[in-house]
């Protein structure tokens, strides 16, 4: 493993894991797993909204404008939940991983500082855009949405830069366990930055595209085949279908980068027990006692994919020093998550091709009900693939938090009963998650009852007079 310092390894051999390690990892995984579902809606859903908005203004298309406006209301709710669940993550970096932040904050923090800037801009312009429908003129209003999309992209790149730095740390010099020199550009543009950032960004666009398309496909399956639903399906699905092949290309590059620069993670992804050539690609199966059990083996597949030749040598798990070798259980998790991600990606590529073919031939959606069924579940699948991808990169780095420098068990806090904090967090997030779903369904029912455009929903209409108080009281 490059950069592996024997000193750090030796120092960490000492006692058993702190009691806080398991709850801290569970909590981080849970809250990050929750937050990441919201990310595509802040980052990419807003782009879909702007497409509908521009189309609506340019072609005087009331339906497109109605979609854009309703999407912005959904985005507002999800952005709020995402903003607060993202804040929790900031707290958790300190509350759960004080030794990561205390020692490496001077380097690791820099991308977050840049992200803070983008988050500011995003929050400001989301508000202007969401609340600007009634009283701003169409094009100026549209342009207030553009910084939302741009800062969403910038924010994603910054946060992923921080994560990529944990995978391939660089740009700092340590002396006596303290960072004494930082090279900010090397921190930000670390080895894993490029492919990870683009991979995540495209993933966000895929998730938003397939999820939103799925919502309208479900409506069409129930017989609502009006133009509103067709457009609501076509805009996001077109974006997702354009992004998916690109994503598969980028994912392929990413895998080869991981092969080259993060060999331990690659060994777990492919579940390679021993270093060698002609390594088979195993689909499925599980890893136990130095062997892969079950699964379908494609001879020399992994070697071919990583170096275009069956004689490509792949480092196995046996090459990792025993004290920092991931346990079998984690190898299986990483390996299966990778298979799930790639499998779903391939299926979504198929759906994209189906859609593209129909559009190319007839300028219309495919007629089959199976197409609508597939689109309906594509959103759920895309979310699963997103989560699986994060499992690959995060679990695949274990036992390290900062590869080669800081073990997760040395990063974790040593004070407090974290199970209590974790339990409270799960209870709260379940309530918030359930209410979010409830509120979105409420909006859907309200809009369905309104049918198409109603007066209050027509954007850029004349300013309304005094109206009923929407937010009346409570106790």
């Amino acid at each position: 493993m490059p950069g592996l310092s024997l000193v750090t390894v030796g120092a960490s051999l000492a006692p058993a894991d702190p009691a806080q390690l398991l709850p801290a990892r569970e909590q981080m995984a849970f809250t990050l797993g929750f937050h990441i579902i919201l990310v595509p809606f802040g980052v990419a859903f807003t782009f879909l909204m702007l497409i509908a908005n521009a189309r609506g203004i340019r072609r005087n298309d009331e339906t497109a404008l109605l979609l854009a406006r309703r999407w912005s209301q959904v985005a507002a709710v999800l952005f709020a939940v995402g903003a607060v669940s993202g804040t929790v993550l900031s707290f958790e970096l300190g509350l759960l991983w004080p030794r990561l932040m205390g020692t490496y904050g001077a380097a690791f923090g820099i991308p977050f500082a840049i992200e803070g800037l983008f988050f500011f801009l995003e929050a400001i312009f989301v508000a202007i855009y969401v609340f600007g429908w009634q009283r701003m003129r169409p094009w100026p209003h549209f342009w207030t949405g553009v910084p939302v999309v741009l800062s969403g992209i910038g924010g994603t790149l910054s946060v992923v830069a921080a994560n990529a730095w944990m995978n391939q740390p660089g740009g700092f010099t340590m002396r006596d366990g303290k960072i004494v020199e930082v090279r900010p550009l090397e921190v930000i543009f670390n080895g894993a930055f490029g492919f990870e950032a683009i991979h995540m960004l495209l993933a966000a666009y895929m998730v938003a595209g397939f999820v939103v398309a799925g919502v309208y496909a479900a409506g069409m399956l129930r017989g609502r085949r009006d133009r509103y639903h067709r457009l609501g399906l076509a805009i996001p699905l077109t974006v997702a279908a354009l992004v998916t092949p690109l994503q598969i290309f980028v994912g392929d590059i990413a895998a080869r980068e991981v092969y080259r620069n993060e060999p331990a993670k690659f060994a777990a992804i492919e579940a390679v027990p021993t270093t060698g050539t002609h390594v088979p690609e195993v689909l499925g199966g599980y890893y136990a006692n130095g062997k892969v059990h079950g699964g379908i083996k494609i001879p020399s597949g992994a070697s071919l994919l990583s170096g275009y030749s069956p004689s490509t040598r792949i480092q196995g798990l046996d090459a990792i020093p025993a004290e920092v070798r991931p346990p079998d259980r984690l190898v299986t998790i990483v390996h299966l998550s990778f298979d799930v991600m790639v499998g779903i990606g391939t299926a979504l590529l198929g759906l994209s091709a189906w859609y593209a073919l129909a559009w190319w031939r007839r300028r219309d959606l495919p007629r089959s009900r199976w197409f609508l069924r597939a689109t309906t579940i594509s959103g759920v699948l895309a979310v699963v693939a997103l989560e699986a991808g994060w499992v690959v990169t995060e679990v695949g780095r274990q036992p390290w938090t900062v590869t080669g420098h800081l073990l997760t068990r040395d990063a974790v806090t040593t004070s407090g009963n974290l199970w209590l904090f974790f339990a409270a967090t799960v209870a709260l997030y379940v309530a918030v998650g359930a209410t979010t779903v409830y509120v979105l369904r409420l909006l859907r029912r309200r809009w369905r009852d309104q049918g198409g455009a109603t007066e209050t929903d027509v954007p850029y209409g004349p300013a309304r007079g005094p109206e009923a108080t929407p937010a009346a009281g409570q106790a």
Partner: protein
Amino acid sequence: MSTFAAVVLFIGVTAYAVLGGADYGAGFWDLTAGGARRGRDPRHLIDQTLAPVWEANHVWLIFCLVMLWTGFPSAFAAIMTTLYIPLGLAALGIVVRGSGFAFRKVVVKTDQQRATGAAFATSSVITPFFFGTIAGGIASGRVPADGHGDPVTSWVNPTSLLGGVLAVGVCAFVAAVFLTAEARTRADAHLEGWFRRRAQASAVATGAVALAGIAVLHADAGRLFDGLTGRGLPLVLISAASGLASIALLHRAEPRLLQALAVGAAGTVVVGWGVAQYPYLLGTHLRLDEAAAPDATLASLTLVAAAALLLVVPSMALLFVLHQRGRLDTA
């Protein structure tokens, strides 16, 4: 270099205390506005005033966290390993507050609005209280430089409790003045009176707490007391004068002037804390320059701060101006 980074950090703390604080304070008045019918109008105004701005104001908190952990990482770790109880509770409070507010805007049935609104309002009171206790723990030197201070007494102590109560009071006061000004802009005499009475009451209550606080600090946090009565005294006096002036002028002054005075009253207290503490970050045991990250990191933070000045400040001004001119439809 480290002083400059500390100034940037403290600008963030002050901005969050004032702007974020006003949003929390609005939640205080929401909570105490009475039953569904009686509290309907004030809650409506609170809703309309907060909706477009609270998220942008909230980002100041993220800004502070990031500046602290990047610019002064060891101090960040020390604070987090000591004050983890109030910090954890504040984090959960933030989730309840933000999502409760966002949900209340969508639901229409009274009982659902009651539940989401109560979640928003209750957590709007609890969260600043915890932030106040955290500030008190830091200011009274209860966070050791290596962290892992006492998890209970670091925030359950006279200075922290004073900080918590004062935070809730100041938030409520600033919010009441803002909402009085907002009601006047909308020419709503009834609501103007409603919030004006509350601004006056909260000013009196907060002033009394602050006066009592002098004795508390004298007994419990000598160094902070010395700083506030020495180097920080002008700021403390400005704060008191702004607070009194805003109450005296509450009937007549321009809304804009009222808001400025409330901001002045709250902001100078926070700045005063910073001035009193300089050049230490934690108690008298960790100086800013000892806790600071290497220069290149601080230079990066300076660049980010400059970019914020160029991009974020005008954008935020645009948001506030559009909001004040009624260009944002919050219904």
